């Protein structure tokens, strides 16, 4: 018996708009798909492409990035910077064979709880259709940057 695939999606929200939209959806008891696990950032401008890659390499099937509508950013226009990064990131991920539809950028204001819930439902459907990503959990020793740096220096005897 095969279980139907339920995607795991990591979502990034901004403190002032989209996180509050998620709160608003909660307060209004709007029901939506449980597949998205949210991380709160202060601003969508904090979104480092490394986060997206880490999520995908770590087992996520998709990544949802949310922020304030253009022109409404709490920090004036940082969401535009997020947009530019998102577009270049998506192109680069394509070269790794990752479908561009696996990462999505959505704007939602603090009052748009319903809208955010709908966007989440839509995105979960879209990723479900793409199937699992199942990025390999590469065996460790791993990453050069993650190598432990011990304070002990190596003693050398001639």
């Amino acid at each position, binding site marked *: 018996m095969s279980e139907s695939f339920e995607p795991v999606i990591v979502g990034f929200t901004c403190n002032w708009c989209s996180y509050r939209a998620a709160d608003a959806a909660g307060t209004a008891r709007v029901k939506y798909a449980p597949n998205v696990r949210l991380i709160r950032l202060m601003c969508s401008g904090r979104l480092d492409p490394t986060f997206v890659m880490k999520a995908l390499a770590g087992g996520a099937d998709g990544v949802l990035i949310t922020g304030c509508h253009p022109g409404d950013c709490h920090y004036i226009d940082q969401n535009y910077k997020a947009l530019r990064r998102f577009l*270049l990131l998506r192109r680069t991920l394509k070269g790794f064979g990752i479908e561009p539809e696996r990462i999505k950028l959505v704007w939602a204001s603090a009052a748009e709880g319903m809208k955010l819930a709908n966007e989440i439902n839509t995105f979960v459907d879209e990723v479900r259709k793409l199937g699992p990503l199942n990025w390999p959990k590469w065996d460790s020793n791993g990453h050069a940057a993650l190598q432990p740096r011990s304070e002990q*220096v190596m003693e050398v005897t001639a």
Partner: protein
Amino acid sequence: MSDKPKFAMYWAASCGGCEISVLNIAEKILDVDANFEPVFWPVAMDAKYKDVEAMEDGSILLTLWNGGIRNDENEHIAHLLRKKSKILVAFGSCATEGCIPGLANLSPVEEIFATAYHTISTDNPQGIHPQPTFEVPEGTLTIPTLKPVLKTLAQVVDVDYYMPGCPPEPHQIAAVIDLVIQVLQGKAQLPPKGAYIGCGNSTVCDECPRARNVKHITAFRRIQEVAPLDPEICILEQGVPCNGPATRSGCNARCPRVGAQCIGCYGPAEGVLDYGARLITAFASVVDAKEPEEIEAILDGIPDPTGQFYRFNLADSLLRASTAAWKKNGH
């Protein structure tokens, strides 16, 4: 048998440039000879694997490992040399981050073979394809098989130090040799295990003499479209994608000094988890547009972002390989 500390240098999946770079330290090579006894250095001396196997564990004081781990021979020797060496240094971009051989991680192994042995420029009329084993009257011959993806040295064994660069610059190699000699003489301490050595603490821009202003890029262009480049101003500012801002310093901005954009051979800056991500964010930050269509038009000026951002670092990135490389074969 001398009582000088033992030294080894091995090449795996690489081009040989690192060995040349070592030679380019000129007279300093005499210091190497004065202070070390090379016991295993395929490019410079004859030795067999069984000689290495016969050595005591940890008896080689310093091993410089050049090259990525592409086949099972590379992997086997990596484990062997790790056992036999006290200090194992991932030497050069291939060993630290995969370098150019790492770009093969964008293709499955079958495709690599097809390209090497069966394309139009290959003279292979009988379509001969290497086999891992072959029977001859004397017995069975084996050759190494390719692993599904290329790995860096650290992804296979425990590494003590990293020397980035394609190749590491001779003046940096000389500096490291000096340091090791000083350590041997008890005049200095080795840096903490896991450190990057023979390089700077910032990025290429730190060493680049070009003038820098706030950047507003309205188009990315290939260097020949912009030629002649203004020699005084930052290359990225002139619209040519220069990887300098994200690339570790140490080479003295060699390429920008002569009018070529940095392609990133010294790898990421200290502590960076994914080199390509830093370039994505840097380039996106200087794009001077707000509307999606305008932004996409400017980004069209980088037709191969994966190659532009991961030319040297693919095998050590967070994703390491494309789905094409691992999907069918596992890893």
